[in-house]
């Protein structure tokens, strides 16, 4: 059963050459001049339940845009995306954190941003604090946290949402070795629990090791999709050719 289905998906961005919002130019009747830029063109794929799919490609090849489209932050210009189940997107850890509120208040706020009912957060609260190893700091304002601490808290909340589909965008690249290890363990746990994971990464060894399949994005089109080893190999050889 496929939980993500992407059909003929295309996304166009407007690139404004000289972005003008000003009244004078509007009154003079000059419209914004923009160039159409197709970030993604005719993308088709499906992800099965329990699959972990790696998404690789050079910067600007449309990987993050794809995740944002699946997360419903952006809308397709053409085509459609169908998903089944709760999606949690780790595009940026701690998006929406408020520096003036305490760790505890931020856990509740961020939890509800990620659509966790209050009693669910109550139930998972201790687990979140424990995972982030911030027991001592939970009642001080977030602005006194180091960036590493904020990130740990963000990850701890996001993985506790218990999603059906998890979208991860390179967030594990930061953090110290010990915490990174913990994150990978958490992802393995998700895999064992039959969760579907889309994993955007430049860390090719991890993609080989952890992902069942992979897609290589090349200038907004699918360069190759299939077994992660094969896809990583052809991506690497395409880089050497350049």
């Amino acid at each position: 059963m496929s939980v993500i289905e992407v059909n003929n998906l295309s996304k166009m961005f407007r690139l404004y050459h000289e972005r003008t919002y000003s009244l004078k130019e509007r009154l003079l009747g000059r419209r914004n001049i923009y160039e159409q830029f197709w970030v993604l063109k005719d993308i088709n794929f499906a992800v099965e339940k329990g699959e972990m799919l790696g998404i690789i490609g050079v910067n600007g090849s449309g990987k993050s845009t794809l995740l944002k489209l699946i997360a419903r932050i952006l809308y397709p210009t053409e085509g459609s995306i169908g998903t089944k189940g709760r999606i949690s997107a780790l595009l940026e850890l701690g998006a929406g954190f408020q520096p003036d509120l305490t760790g505890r208040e931020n856990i509740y706020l961020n939890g509800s941003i990620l659509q966790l009912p209050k009693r669910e957060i109550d139930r998972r609260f201790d687990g979140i604090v424990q995972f982030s190893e911030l027991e001592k700091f939970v009642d001080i304002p977030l602005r006194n946290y180091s960036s590493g601490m904020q990130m740990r808290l963000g990850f701890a909340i996001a993985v506790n949402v218990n999603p059906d589909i998890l979208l991860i965008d390179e967030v594990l690249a930061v953090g110290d070795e010990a915490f990174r290890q913990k994150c990978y363990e958490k992802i393995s746990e998700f895999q064992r629990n039959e969760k579907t994971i889309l994993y955007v990464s430049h860390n090719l060894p991890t993609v080989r090791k952890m992902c069942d399949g992979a897609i290589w994005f090349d200038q907004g089109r699918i360069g190759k999709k299939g077994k992660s080893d094969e896809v990583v190999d052809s991506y690497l050889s395409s880089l050497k050719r350049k």
Partner: protein
Amino acid sequence: MRELFQYRELIKSFVIRDLKIMYKNSYLGFFWSFLNPLCRAVVFYIIFDKIFHVGIEHFVIYLLCAILAWMFFADSLNCATFSIVNNAGLIKKVYSPLEIYPLSSILTRIVNFLLSLVVLFLWILFCRIKLNFSLLYLPLIILIQLIFTIGIGFFLAAAYVFFRDLGHLLELILLVWFYFTPIFYKVEMVPIRFRFFYLLNPMAALITFYRDILLYSRYPDLKLLGITTITSIISLVIGWSVFNFHSQRFAEEI
């Protein structure tokens, strides 16, 4: 709409967040919600009752009815207009129905408004004004104002994403609107042949109702109430549609 209901907890957390942030790091915190209208009342009392001897009876209440309602309206629009752009960090990273941003910023303001009404009621008590059952209309009047404000707020929030001049224009619009609303003068001072059109401004009608109820113990004029309700609902429908029509592009434009 159904989705919005699912997100009611998030709306609640946003309102609580905004209220907390509003008062964080201030010694008196939450009491400012009472203190601000109280100070205004005292200032009005000293200036208009003691120094200028304005002839209108209970002028402080007369002004407070209008000023508090106006502040709720103007502050709401000031927050709602920028709500999408100010939450860009969130909107670009996490999915959420975008209506919640203007909505929660307006709901934050209504909490403040309701708290400030406490001060107004205390002053009314202090002046020994007898209120009657017309008071039962008060929740309805507040609801109509809320509906009207949400409509305008949605429209402005969407418009600001594409048209940033609105940030500067808004101040001027509110200034003009302020003077087209009977805050420092009586509706009766408007020439009779313009008065019907003048009262088509929902804020003018609403403030008249607040005074009717809280100062004169009068029932609101039902015909005007009907017109104002319809105008407010039209504002909501238009604001909501404009917002929804453009909301798919917000994340790319901010």
